[in-house]
């Protein structure tokens, strides 16, 4: 059985943890994704994308429920990730389901913007 190779990461105020089961990968983000997190995120998300592709996942659940804040630079890293997924051949393209926290108000607007950017890939829950 294929195991997802993506150890937990703590970069400053940002924590990222990923697990893979069957054809689904879950990635949990917690803390704050501000300027300090940008450089690590720029290398981590492409690594995660490569690993998700290797894992042949059909869905990634991106859990933002404990993500206090994300700045526009980190938001751009997610845009780049979505663009990479869109570039995959159709049969390898995976969906992304974002789990949001209704009490963290920026998430509703930012995730809606991400959804509009990639309506073929992104759904938002919560």
């Amino acid at each position, binding site marked *: 059985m294929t195991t997802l190779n993506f150890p937990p990461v703590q970069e400053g*105020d940002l924590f990222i943890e990923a697990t893979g089961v069957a054809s689904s990968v879950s990635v949990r983000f917690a803390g*704050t994704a*501000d*300027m*300090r997190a*940008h450089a690590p995120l720029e290398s981590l998300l492409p690594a995660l994308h490569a690993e998700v592709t290797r894992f042949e996942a059909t869905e990634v659940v991106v859990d933002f429920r404990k993500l206090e*804040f994300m*700045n*526009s*630079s980190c*938001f*751009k890293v997610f*845009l*780049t990730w979505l*663009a990479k997924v869109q570039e995959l051949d159709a049969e390898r393209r995976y969906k992304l389901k974002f789990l949001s926290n209704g*009490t*963290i*108000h*920026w998430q509703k*607007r*930012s995730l809606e*913007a991400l959804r*509009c*950017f990639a309506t073929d890939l992104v759904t938002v829950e919560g």
Partner: protein
Amino acid sequence: MANPFFALNFRPNVALVSVVRRFVVEFFTQFLDDPDSTSRIALATHELLENGVKYASDEETNLSIEIRSDDTGRTVVIQTRNRAGTGNIAKLRELVDEMNQQDAMTFYQTLMRRSLGTPLGCSGLGIARIRTEGEMSVELNIDNDTVTIVATARA
């Protein structure tokens, strides 16, 4: 009761920006019964301060936030002021001019696509985010090398 207001003059660094954002949330939670408005103010403040960290030529940024009340309701005015280089000022002016001529979400989506090919700090997404997600109008005042950004919204 006087309009809630605070001003900060400091040399922001990356860690302090988040500290100020949390302070803004605490401060305005006291005056607004609307967590969504508080969140929008905090978002705009964070993005404006990060712009200060990136672009202020003498590392000093002035931030002020005021809630003005009148018969029609409340207006939040967030203002940052710092000195910047000529090239950065020109890029900012071009971005704000282009942004203010278009529908907020349409421009935001356009900028998202355009940002994929740009290096860190040059995309303008922060300013567009203030307008779209912050639901704020954004105006620019330039006096020689001093840039004042004013973000305004109903709260």
